[in-house]
């Protein structure tokens, strides 16, 4: 088997783009898809028509983009991530509403106030990201991680 890094650029790009597919689909069909891509590319090049090569490239790009979207939708991960994001935003909104009720002595100087503002904004963003990750892990707890496997041609 040829390592991916020794293959032509188009094949390497396609092999790398396969990592956008959900892991379960990639593990099951990634090798076969890459092999089919190589054969289809060879056929398109053998035709000797630049339009055939361009058509092949467009067809493969559209096919892979569709596959990535469809397969992620099939896993339900998009719905889980959206639900988790909603929960995280609700949590942050509740926290902000709570914090607004507490009296805080702001620094007297404008510079310190700006710094405080930036720190607060960053903290809120970090909380949103962290809660999204936590909620996603929580909701998707039933999806077990499987060992990663390298794609081989």
């Amino acid at each position, binding site marked *: 088997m040829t390592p991916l890094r020794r293959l032509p650029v188009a094949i390497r790009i396609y092999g790398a783009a396969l990592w956008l597919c959900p892991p379960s*689909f990639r593990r099951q069909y990634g090798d*076969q898809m890459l092999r089919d891509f190589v054969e289809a590319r060879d056929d398109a090049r053998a035709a000797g028509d630049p339009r055939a090569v361009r058509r092949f490239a467009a067809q*493969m790009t559209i096919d892979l983009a569709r596959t990535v979207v469809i397969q992620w939708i099939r896993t339900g991960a998009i719905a889980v991530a959206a639900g988790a994001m909603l929960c995280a935003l609700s949590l942050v909104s509740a926290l902000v509403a709570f914090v607004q009720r507490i009296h805080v002595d702001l620094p007297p100087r404008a510079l310190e106030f700006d710094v405080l503002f930036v720190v607060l904004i960053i903290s809120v963003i970090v909380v949103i990201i962290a809660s999204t990750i936590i909620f996603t892990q929580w909701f998707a707890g039933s999806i077990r991680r499987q060992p990663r496997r390298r794609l081989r041609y």
Partner: protein
Amino acid sequence: MPPLTPAVVHVMLSLAAGERHGYAILKDVQRQSNQALRFGPGTIYGTLQRLMEAGWVEETTAPAAPVDERRRYYRLTRGGRAALSEEVDRLSSLVQLARSHRIAPRGSKG
């Protein structure tokens, strides 16, 4: 049973002729449709995945004539063949209905 998508029908028709690997199915679909349908590997394997979940297609462990042993071969199950027959019946009824309304395929004489 709801109508099958063109991708599913073409993949199943390809497998109706015998066990095939993914790229052979891809080429079959192009031939069947006179190059009108050009599916990529993602569409083919996505369709195969759904068909296997439905129990209509299965992976074969020992192909009758292995050309490339690294390839995975697929074949129709009995349930898959029955589902394909049902779909062909449905399409046939549809064609008959169209003909009764004097809508015939272009280039045909009847």
